[in-house]
Each structure stands twice: as structure tokens, then as C-alpha cells.
């Protein structure tokens, strides 16, 4: 395998969790809910996936555990913000703080244990194509899932009736409610999907990216995923471009170190965070386009009148 291929492969591995977590948050935000707890749900997904894999020996059960844990954990946020109409920003932060704390506690006995890496699955015929084959068709199941999920969410949001309802809830919950759409239930499900995706993204971190458990191993990726949703203007396909751009930036530090360019490693490590800020500025500085793209009810509480 050549150096270029190796670099591209590492970019894909770094980008996949970003794409998945951002996709889940995109659906949540399309329903009008801002969940800042992505980081917390992701790290909970990572620890439960790692633990389940260690206990059962099967990384596939680990993936399921990660998804389930993210989905269940997100319902804590949903209950507070949807049923008790608590402030979404503050509750999202609470979810992140609790997730970081709880995962640290749950994962303590798994520290320093060599993990089981999720093995790639080669797709017959396609995997033998030079260059593209090993990159795209000799990947693990989470990568395939990430692409399928983006396509699926795009179809769901823009081609299906349920997706139309979900977007209606996000753009004007009062109108959707008046038309008989169950706003609260739609949002519960959208939050749960966001949680499941964050959990899956976390599972990718502890089973593929670095197959071990390290405290706070999401390292801000949940926040970068939130920025990616803004970057994508709430459109699923653009997440792939954004995710791979950020994957490339976060990988560049490793390769720059390998080339020995003499740049302080800390500066290189801060690149993904600085890049996030720069991208956010570029995307949001035009007030009008931001206003048009943002789901109009985003972050606004809804209490149905009975």
C-alpha cells in the first residue's frame, strides 16, 4: 500500500465518526431540537461499545451496545427538554458533562486493555479495483453504514412523508401541531435517532479508530460534529464533504509529525479546532443565508395547548 493510499485511508477512518454523529444531529436539528449533548452521547457510545466487545468478544455486539446506549442516553435530554421544556442549551451541556463523567466511571476497569478491532469486510469484485477498491470496498461495516445512512436520511427527509412532517415540525411547530402532527413524539424520535448515531460514532472510535478505551476519547469530536451540521446547511450529502475535510485536517497533524516539519505538535493538534472556527465564520457571516437554512423552530420550546 502506497503512502497516498495510507493517508487517504486514515482520513476516511477519521472522518467516519464525524459524518455519523453529525448526521444524527442533523435529523435532531431538522425537527427543531438543538442537542448539545453529542459529545456526551458519543463518549457513552464509545465506552459501552468497548465494554460490550470485551465482555462478549464480538465487536458487532459492541456496535449494537454503542447504538443502544447513545439512544437511551439521549432520552434523558429528550425528557427534560420536550416533556419538562427545560432550556435546550443548558440541558445539552448537562448531557455532555454527565456523559463525560459517567463514561469515565464506567470505563475505569477497561483502561489500558488491548481492544478488539473491528475487521474490514471486502466486497467481492469491487474490492479488487486498484486504489479505489482497498479504500472504499475493503472497509469495516461502520464505514458502509455511514454512507448508507447519509443516503437513507436524504431520502427520508426529502422524499418521504414522515420526513416532510419532521421538517414541518422543525420549521414551524405551531403549524405542524395545528395540522395534527404529534410534535413532541416526532421530536422524541428525532432526538433518539441523533443519540443512536452519536453512539454508533462513539463505537467507531473505540473499535476502529483506536481500538481501546481512553477517558474523554471523543476529544471534542461531538462539538466538531455540531459545527459540521451548520457547515452542511442542514443538508445530509454536504456532511460527507465537510466530514472528510475535517478528517483530513485532523489527520494532517500525524503526518506532519512524521515528516518532521519542526512545527510544535500542540499547534498541529489545535488545527481541527481552529479550522472549525474558520469554517463556522465562513458559513455564518452572511446573516440572510444562515436564516434561510436554519430550521426556524430550532431551539424553541413547545408546549402543546390542550
Amino acid at each position: 500500500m502506497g503512502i497516498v493510499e495510507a493517508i487517504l485511508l486514515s482520513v476516511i477512518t477519521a472522518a467516519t465518526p464525524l459524518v455519523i454523529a453529525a448526521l444524527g444531529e442533523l435529523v435532531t436539528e431538522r425537527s427543531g431540537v438543538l442537542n448539545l449533548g453529542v459529545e456526551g452521547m458519543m463518549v457513552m457510545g464509545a465506552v459501552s461499545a468497548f465494554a460490550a466487545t470485551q465482555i462478549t468478544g464480538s465487536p458487532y455486539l459492541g456496535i449494537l451496545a454503542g447504538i443502544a446506549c447513545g439512544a437511551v442516553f439521549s432520552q434523558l435530554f429528550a425528557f427534560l427538554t420536550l416533556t419538562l421544556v427545560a432550556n435546550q442549551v443548558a440541558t445539552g451541556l448537562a448531557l455532555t458533562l454527565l456523559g463525560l463523567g459517567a463514561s469515565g466511571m464506567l470505563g475505569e476497569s477497561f483502561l489500558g486493555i488491548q481492544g478488539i478491532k473491528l475487521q474490514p469486510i471486502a466486497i467481492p469484485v469491487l474490492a479488487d479495483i486498484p486504489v479505489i477498491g482497498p479504500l472504499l470496498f475493503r472497509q469495516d461495516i461502520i464505514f458502509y453504514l455511514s454512507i448508507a445512512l447519509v443516503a437513507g436520511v436524504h431520502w427520508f427527509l426529502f422524499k418521504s412523508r414522515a420526513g416532510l412532517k419532521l421538517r414541518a415540525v422543525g420549521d414551524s411547530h405551531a403549524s405542524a401541531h395545528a395540522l395534527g402532527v404529534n410534535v413532541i413524539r416526532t421530536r422524541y424520535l428525532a432526538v433518539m435517532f441523533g443519540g443512536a448515531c452519536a453512539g454508533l460514532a462513539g463505537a467507531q472510535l473505540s473499535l476502529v479508530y483506536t481500538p481501546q478505551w481512553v477517558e474523554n476519547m471523543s476529544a471534542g469530536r461531538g462539538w466538531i460534529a455540531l459545527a459540521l451540521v451548520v457547515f452542511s446547511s442542514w443538508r445530509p450529502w454536504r456532511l460527507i464533504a465537510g466530514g472528510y475535510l475535517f478528517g483530513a485536517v485532523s489527520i494532517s497533524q500525524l503526518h506532519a509529525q512524521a515528516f518532521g516539519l519542526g512545527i510544535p505538535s500542540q499547534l498541529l493538534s489545535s488545527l481541527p479546532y481552529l479550522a472549525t472556527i474558520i469554517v463556522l465564520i465562513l458559513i455564518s457571516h452572511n446573516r440572510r443565508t444562515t436564516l434561510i437554512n436554519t430550521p426556524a423552530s430550532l431551539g424553541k420550546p413547545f408546549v402543546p395547548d390542550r
Partner: protein
Amino acid sequence: MRIELEKRAKISTLFSILSPFIAFLLMIIFGGIMFALLGKNPVTALYSFFVEPLSEVWSLHELAIKAAPLILIAVGLSVCFRSNNWNIGAEGQFIMGAIAGSILPVVFYDWQSPLVLPLMMLMGMLGGALFAAIPAFLKAHMNTNEILTSLMLVYVAQLFLDWLVRGPWRNPGGMNFPETRTFAADAILPEMIASGRTHWGFAFAIIAAILVWFMMRYTLKGFEISVLGQSERAGRFAGFSSRRMIWFSMLLSGALAGLAGISEVSGAIQQLRPVISPGYGFTAIIVAFLGRLNPLGIIAAGLVLALTYLGGEAAQLSLGVSDKVTRVFQGLLLFFVLSCDTLIHYRIRLVWYRFTASDLDGSR
């Protein structure tokens, strides 16, 4: 079963006082359950977590030392949150304040003067405020979400500190340890009371809380903060500028976080290290909400959250529970605070039936 909310005609005064206490009680109950699940006796565990640290003089001093940065930061955050500016990067402003304030004792360590300490404090505030100015500028003039930018800058500040103490600021006589020189006597924030280690940072925190409380309650600025926070539109009609408010609240909270940073470094650690905060900037968010965004409430809330840090250390020693329990307690507490706040604005009704004849009756 279904939960229905009914908007109260007036905000409940009873629950606005009670809700932090209910939240704390719920945290204790859940904490007890958690300890029981970990195989510990919940009563002794809770005792060593929440009571034992209060029983000795030295640990009361530790409590004040840990509460000082939490209160200082949370007081600034309360102004931000009340005006709807979500600065969640206080951790980064804390670090940058600590770095800016440490320029004198680390780079100009030869200069000994009674002026050193006040200058350090000022530079700390300036450092924190300048770092908060980045998300403020981006929000006010570039329309960029302050939640994400302020948080991203936390990572940048942590990496910058790491680079400084391993690189240019490393103590030349320090056996290659990643830390700066120990501060000279002139650069150390003195102790406040003879009986222990509590330094003047605690006094700063109390003074800041009282000043901000006064501002919120008795000045036009305070009124402006609440009006703009509750309705930007109403604020505009009153001639208040939300753009100026972004600057005001972010710079104020940045300066207070910076002061917290330099006080902690100068008073408690007395040198810079790669890690100078156990997440004070994030815990302060919980402090701000537990104190119901009221500076006087924040003093009490800061002491409570400081207790969870001490309790975590104590429980680790006496029970062998992981000190991660602290972070779980803190996260749970914020959840309970936020859910109890619902009681202030709404009446909660549990509805046991799904559909009855009275639902068809038009009078309901």
C-alpha cells in the same frame, strides 16, 4: 401515564427558592442508589462524601480554595446566560488569564516589587477578557455561534498552555519536568486567614458576586441585561443594543474567569503546569444554574460544587470509589436543577387516563 404542563399565571416564588434544594436532595437520593449499586453502604458513603470534608478546619480551607474559582467564573457566566450569550469557554479564558498573569513571575522573575501582584491580577483579567473577545467579536460582527467558537477555543488554550510549559516557559532548573519556575514570594497571593491556606481569591469571588448582584438588581445595566435576555425585540425598542451586550457580557465573564485563573495559579499552585484546572470552567456552568443565575445564590452553589470535589477525593481515600464519581454527581445535579426549574414556570400534572367523555366536552 402522561405528564402535562400548565403555565402558571405568575412565576412561583416558592419554587424559585425551593428548586435548588429539591435538586440537591434528588442528587443525594440518586447518589445513594449509585453507591449501593457500587456495593458500598450508601449512608457511610454519602457521609464521607458530603459531611466529612466539613468536619475539619483544614478541609474547610480547601473548600474555600476550590469554591473561589467556581464562584468567580459562575458570576460572570450568570451575566452571559441571563443576556442569552452562551459563553461555555470559561475554561479556556481561565487558562489564558492564568498564562497572561504569569508573564511577570515567569518571564520577568527578577523583578521584585509590591506592584507585581496587582499587575498580575490585572493582566490575568485582561488575558481572560481578550480571549473571550474572540467569540464576542465573532458573534457580534460575524454572526458566528458563540457556543461552538468559545468551546473550540478551550482546546486551543489547553494546547497553548501545554506548549508553553514544555517549551519556552519550562523551568531551566526543573529536571525537564513540564512546569514553570515556582513563583517568587512577591508573586504569591497571600493567605487570608491565619488558620489555613485560603487565599485572597476567595475574597475576590465574594466581592465580585456582591458587585454583580448590585449591578443586576439596582442599575440600568442590570435591567438591560434581563430585558435583552428575555426579549431581544423588546430590548431594541428600549434602545438597548444586543451587539453591545454581547461584548459587555463576554468581556466581563472573560475577565472574571481570567482573574479566577491567575488567582488559582498564584494562590494555590504557585507555578504553571500542563493542567491547572479540574474543569472549573465547565463546573462553573453548573454552579451558575444551581445558583439560579443569581450572584448571591452562586456563592452558596459554588460551595456546594466545591464540596463535591472534596467529597470525591475523600471518598476515593476512605471507600476506594473512583474520583470520577464527582463528575457524575455534578452532571446529575445540573440535570435535577434544570428539571426542577420547570416547577417555577409550570404546574405539572400527571394524567392517568388517555381519553374520556369530558375531553369531548367543548368547555375544557
